[in-house]
């Protein structure tokens, strides 16, 4: 069964000049994770807001767990959890206060709310900071509390809008761990992200969106194949370029690209780090010491370039701002 279906969603702003959603279609199988991947301004947040009953689209249809989002928003709200792009918790209150408040708003009894708060704080490693105001939390802690708040009723369908944007690498790793654990519990998850690596790590399937439309869909492997997978890149001094090219030919078997100016030799590889080690060994045997050698994984930019022919346009650096800060609009 499909846990989420969106059909032909359209939403425009400023009298039609900005098309946030332009005929967006997606569906998510129950119990799976869909990663919605797209650059800033692609329509990710708008999609999540429509599905979470916060925004009425200009046209189109959507259901969550079989319930019509537009006709029955109240029923949808009973089974979803939402954690928005910026941690939306009361900063003056403590983590504990917040969880109790949201528990009560989900109509748990005082006792149930307490029990659930204790469980969630434990699950998200926040027990020690439970009695501190949120404003003293790090970005990662805030996001974890925000996520905890969206799990109070153990939702059937969970929406996470850019759950790691603004986090440092450590916070991102923690968050990935937490999300992976959650998914094991069987929840259906729709998560948006700007990073292919993240979608790769967390999602069963990926929908790439741009200008309010899904432009590609598939598993991360199939998308990467479209882009060309990993590339081996080696930079050497001028006199070694042709020798290096021969070595690369041995490990790659694909088309080799030589950039004379950068003295860079690159080629697609299918065996990942094994190819890298092999190349390094062969170079070493020939006494060639590369200036730089590495595997380059396809980035969102590469996916974009290959899917759309244009580079993903960055709008602003707003998403680098700490997750607690909300952009003003």
């Amino acid at each position: 069964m499909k846990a989420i279906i969106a059909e032909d969603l359209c939403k425009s702003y400023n009298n039609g000049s900005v098309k946030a959603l332009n005929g967006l279609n997606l569906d998510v199988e129950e119990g799976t994770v869909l990663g919605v991947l797209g650059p800033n301004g692609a329509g990710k947040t708008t999609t999540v807001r429509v599905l979470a009953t916060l925004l009425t689209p200009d046209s189109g249809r959507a259901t969550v767990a079989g319930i019509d989002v537009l006709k029955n928003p109240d029923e949808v709200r009973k089974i979803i959890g939402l954690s928005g792009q910026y941690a939306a918790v009361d900063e003056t209150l403590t983590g504990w206060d917040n969880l109790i408040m949201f528990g009560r708003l989900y109509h748990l009894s005082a006792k149930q709310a307490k029990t659930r708060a204790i469980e969630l704080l434990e699950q998200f490693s926040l027990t020690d900071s439970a009695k501190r105001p949120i404003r003293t939390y790090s970005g990662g802690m805030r996001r974890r509390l925000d996520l905890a708040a969206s799990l109070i009723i153990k939702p059937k369908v969970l929406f996470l809008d850019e759950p790691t944007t603004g986090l440092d690498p450590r916070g991102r790793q923690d968050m990935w761990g937490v999300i992976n654990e959650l998914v094991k519990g069987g929840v259906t998850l729709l998560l948006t992200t700007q990073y292919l690596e993240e979608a790769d790590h967390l999602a069963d399937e990926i929908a790439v969106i741009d200008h309010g439309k899904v432009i590609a869909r598939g598993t991360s492997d199939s998308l990467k194949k479209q882009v060309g997978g990993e590339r081996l890149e080696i930079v050497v001094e001028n006199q070694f370029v042709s020798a290096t090219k021969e070595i690369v030919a041995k490990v790659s078997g694909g088309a080799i690209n030589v950039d004379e100016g950068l003295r860079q030799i690159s080629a697609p590889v299918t065996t990942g780090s094994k190819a890298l080690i092999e190349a390094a060994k062969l170079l070493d045997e020939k006494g060639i010491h590369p200036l730089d050698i590495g595997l380059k994984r396809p980035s969102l930019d590469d996916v974009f370039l290959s899917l759309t022919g244009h580079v993903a346009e960055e709008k602003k650096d707003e998403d680098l701002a700490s997750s607690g800060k909300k952009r003003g609009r």
Partner: protein
Amino acid sequence: MSAVSDALVITKRQLLQLTRVPEVLLFSTIQPIMFVLLFRYVFGGSIDTGQPGGYVQLLMPGIFVQTVAFTLAGTAVGLAADMQKGLIDRFRSLPISRSAVVFGRTLGDGALNIVVLAAMGITGFIVGWRPSSGFFNIVLGFLFLLVFGFAMSWVGVIIGLSVREERVAQNATFIAVFPLTFLSNAFAPTTGMPKPLQYVAEWNPVSTMVAGCRELFGLKNEFGATAGSFPSENPLLMSVIYMVIIMAIFIPLSVRKYNKASK
């Protein structure tokens, strides 16, 4: 039933905020107390009221009304901040009654006035305010003020949800409320104003509230009212009408606005 308990959870959140950040309550009480003292001692000597007890008797109802009128600002700023931080979005994604958040907020802001009015009343008493109308009327006077504050709070909901930014809400409400409270009989007689302004001041809900409270606190209402017009003759009735109108318009409007709210 759950609509009421949902709203109370929101109200409780606000009261909790006060215990976590006590400065908020401190400053929202200090400011009106400061006003009482400043007006009492700066203007008190130079305005001849012709009533026993001096200027402070007339001043107190004026400052009470001004203060509760500013409930609007607290509501607008609080909601704009919630909006800005995405909290309104989160609340709207919960299975709660569609009016809970705005009702909870206005109730909380209205309730905060109890503390503020008590602090002002005590300060007033210390500097010579002596309401002479008896217990029942005094209590009625304060109830009147609380309801007015509650009604104004609903105007604040619309402002807060419309401007969507804390800082803007702060400025917008200041600009809205200050002229309203000064274009009135709250601090000085309207009779000194140019004729057209006198009419505005006379029909201003702040004036009718002030005049009404003066009556309830036992003053003859000579000061500030241009004799003969309906609002100056019937300030209590007129105030009730205003409050009903404000709530009848702004409560449904606010609930609608909240349910369409988007960042």
